[in-house]
């Protein structure tokens, strides 16, 4: 069961740690130059393909009166369109809607990879992918603001909110700059990464550790074998609760990333700060 659940980490070392998240090159015989072609890249590609295929599938043959498939697609689409894009961005939402739809579904699918067989690994617990998406969002909201107000005007709006006394400008400008241009993308990336990293680590502790305890044949640290095995079984059962929690966390993080992206775009193009 363990090799099936955690096919890529293996139980070779204990306890699970940062190196449990190392990628495995797909073509080790080609040498270190091709190590970037690894299992996690493959699953990210598969995630992107799944997202694209899903949306194209539900968008195919749409009718005015929806069937089951279309209803499902519209349910998800409406959630993003009405509850996130339109509520946060107002009448400009249509322009940014594709970005938000793609962002949410791409993150969600990759997060759910952490709880489903075949991968059992959330792609965004590799921080590079999270950095990539945060960078995209960073570029998006700044581009939106610069296009609307021009570079100088936009920088002024983003660093010196209207109504701040000029005497405080020396304090406010650096603070706002750090908050809007540095903290935003990094917190986006780190929030997504850290939630999935930690969640996956906990799952590994329970599953791998549970498996180890369950298969103990000799007393360890003065504990008798039946107790160790029982503890392993309990930890195994408990891991299912963690799995459920991680499903929730994965969906929640996808939602948060999307909402914050919309929020940042909204604040960049807002009429009044």
């Amino acid at each position, binding site marked *: 069961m363990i090799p099936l659940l955690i096919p890529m980490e293996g139980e070779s070392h204990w306890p699970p740690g940062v190196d449990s998240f190392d990628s495995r090159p797909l073509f080790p015989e080609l040498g270190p130059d091709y190590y970037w072609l690894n299992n996690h890249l493959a699953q990210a590609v598969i995630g992107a393909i799944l997202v694209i295929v899903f949306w194209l599938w539900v*968008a195919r043959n749409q009718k005015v009166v929806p069937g089951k498939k*279309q209803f499902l697609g519209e349910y998800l689409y409406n959630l993003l369109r009405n509850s996130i894009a339109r509520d946060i961005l107002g009448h400009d939402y249509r322009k940014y809607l*594709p970005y938000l739809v*793609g962002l949410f579904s*791409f993150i969600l699918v990759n997060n759910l990879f952490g709880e489903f067989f075949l991968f059992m690994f959330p792609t965004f617990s590799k*921080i*590079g992918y999270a950095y*990539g998406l945060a960078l995209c969002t960073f570029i998006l909201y700044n581009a939106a603001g610069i296009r609307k107000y021009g570079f100088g005007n936009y920088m002024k709006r983003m660093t010196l909110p209207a109504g701040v006394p000029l005497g405080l400008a020396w304090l406010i400008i650096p603070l706002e700059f750090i908050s809007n241009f540095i903290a935003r993308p990094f917190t986006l990336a780190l929030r997504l990464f850290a939630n999935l990293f930690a969640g996956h680590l906990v799952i590994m502790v329970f599953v791998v550790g549970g498996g180890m305890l369950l298969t103990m044949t000799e007393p360890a640290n003065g504990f008798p074998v039946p107790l160790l095995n029982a503890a392993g079984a309990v930890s195994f059962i408990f891991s299912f609760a963690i799995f459920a929690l991680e499903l929730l966390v994965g969906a929640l993080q996808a939602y948060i990333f999307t909402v914050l992206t919309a929020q940042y775009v909204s604040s960049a193009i807002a009429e009044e700060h």
Partner: protein
Amino acid sequence: MLPLEGEGIDLGPLLPEYPSEIIAGIILFLLVWFVVAKKVVPIFEKTYAERTEEIQGGIEKAEAAQAEAAAALAEYKEQLASAREEAARIREEAKTQAAATAAELRQAAQEESARLLETARAQIEAERAHVVQELRGEIGGLATQLAGRIVGESLEDDERARRSVERFIAELEAEAEAKTV
């Protein structure tokens, strides 16, 4: 993205294992974005627009139908009211007519009965007069005979006898009249 990389600080898991992860993440996401923007969202929005249009059309159609139904209802109500009025009028007319007819019939019957009564009365009067006339003659004859026998003399003189009888009867009548008056 990696401002602290060169400074010898161990970023641990915050440092991407392979920088290609960042590029891969960006490229894959841009691909998803592209497809969603070019294909998916336009299709969904088109469906929504069609649906809105259809619903609006449907609502307009329904409103028209409702207005039509309301007009028809008003017309029917009007017709019904006028029919009721007509019926009431006819009923009233019939009632008046019936009353008139009954009065006429009663009148005719009364006239008829009065006429019959009058006729009967006249007939009776005539018969009575006739009987009285006859009786007067007969009684006169009988009385004369009787008187002749009583007085032993034949009252041959018819003329005289007749006159005395007449006188007698007239007296009788006068007496009877005096009695009734």
